[in-house]
């Protein structure tokens, strides 16, 4: 493959991945607690390119690629639901839930009291209190949560919700169901200024208009790259035909 085709094809491939990420964002524009994904473009330097770089010559093979994705953790809009099991965080921080395979972090506060009396998410994962243990409540009574995260039943405090800040959000990977997994080496600290709002839920932070505009951009870039491939093919064809003419 000639360099133009290879570079353009690499660009096309990355645009399809951008489209995949964009499709997922748009599909989740209505998912509470969802955080939009973006991609980071980078250049792949082939060995030839590095050799050329050392010798101060123009580079031969550097290809655009989507090297990693990053999640945009900006706050989503807080939506009033009036449901006492809905809890939203006003600033940074995550709720911590216990699953069979370890701890998961989430911003989606859809909680309920399970049959065993534990405060849990809709998926049945126990929500942890500030002491790192599941919050045990009386299933026959409704609960209230104060802005500081204190859970009470009939004016008697039962415990505090654990709300943790993560040192760098890059250490979080998505697990589906708006849960995040934290890498084991990452550090957490209790969130200080974050308020807990009962009866509200944090909406998705995807901006559908922005996403649609980006979609058009990706589409046109892809088209341009495809044109580049065609031109490169044409050039190759021309070269062969011209050479053949001279030879004949």
């Amino acid at each position, binding site marked *: 493959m000639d360099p133009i085709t290879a570079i353009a094809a690499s660009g096309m491939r990355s645009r399809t991945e951008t*489209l995949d990420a*964009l499709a997922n964002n748009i*599909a989740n524009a*209505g998912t509470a607690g969802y955080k939009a994904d973006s991609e980071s473009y980078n250049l792949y330097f082939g*060995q030839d390119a590095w050799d050329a770089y050392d010798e101060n010559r123009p580079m031969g093979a550097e290809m655009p690629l989507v090297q990693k994705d990053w999640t945009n953790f900006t706050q989503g809009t807080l939506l009033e*639901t009036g449901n006492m099991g809905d809890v939203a965080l006003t600033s940074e921080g995550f709720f911590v839930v216990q699953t069979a395979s370890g701890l998961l972090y989430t911003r989606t506060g859809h909680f309920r009291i399970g049959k065993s009396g534990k405060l849990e998410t*809709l998926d049945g994962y126990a929500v942890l209190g500030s002491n790192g243990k599941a919050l045990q409540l009386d299933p026959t009574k409704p609960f209230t949560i104060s802005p500081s995260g204190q859970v009470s039943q009939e004016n008697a405090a039962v415990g505090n919700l654990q709300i943790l800040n993560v040192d760098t959000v890059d250490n979080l990977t*998505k697990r*589906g169901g708006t849960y995040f997994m934290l890498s084991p080496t990452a550090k957490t600290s209790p969130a200080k200024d974050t308020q807990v709002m009962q009866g509200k839920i944090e909406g998705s932070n995807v901006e559908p208009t922005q996403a649609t505009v980006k979609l058009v951009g990706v*589409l046109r870039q892809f088209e341009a790259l495809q044109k580049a491939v065609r031109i490169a093919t044409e050039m190759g064809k021309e070269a062969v035909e011209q050479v053949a003419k001279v030879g004949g």
Partner: protein
Amino acid sequence: MIRALYTAGSGMTAQQTNVDNIANNLANSNTAGFKMRRAQFQDLLYQNVSQPGAASGSQTTAAAGLQLGLGAKPSANEIIFTQGDFQQTNNPYDLVIQGAGFFQIQQPNGQIAYTRAGAFQPDRNGNLVTQDGNQLTPPITIPPQAQSVTIAADGTVSFTLPGQTAAQTAGQIQLANFANPGGLNSLGKNLFTPTDASGDPTVGPPGGQEGLGTIQQGYLESSNVNVVEEFINLITSQRAYEANSKVVKAADEMYQQVNQVVS
């Protein structure tokens, strides 16, 4: 690109569910005692894409993983138990619960169901029944010749008989509540039954220590559907559907472009 097609497809399905739910809410905007539902969504699993070449270059920075999500799914549509408006009817058997709680209704199969719709009537035996003829539990019986039936805020039902001055008590209405009413199971006809998610009912007198609401006679609780809010939801849902369909179109166009490369 096939990934983007299915991802956007899942988003369209999710928004369809949302519109179905909005349609049901709007259809019941005049149903007394109706409680709206709100659809909730979750993101699906993530696919880890290995990037060929990214880690092989000697001078390239360590590549973090590339995760691509595979769309959205409707996860739940919970019932929102906000209070509906009170509508004055002056019918002595129309009751509203001011606050939390449910009337307990005996279904024909003997099981208890729960409702916020307090439009009762005495049947031919004088028992208070719902519009479907299901009895209120514990039963309240009012003799046919009773006059001026009064139902107090604490649920005490009293009446006077012709020629008597002293009022007689027919019983006290008991209410039930749940730890998580949003997790109740809708039976239709404004009836709910408990589930594992809702927890077991706590029964008590209206206005009692259990935190149950009080009863108001001569009113009906309107549906808590906010038509304006539902229309806003409908518009956002429609736009989200549109955005997803645009993605399908974009993926299709990109696919076409690929096919044209080798024309």
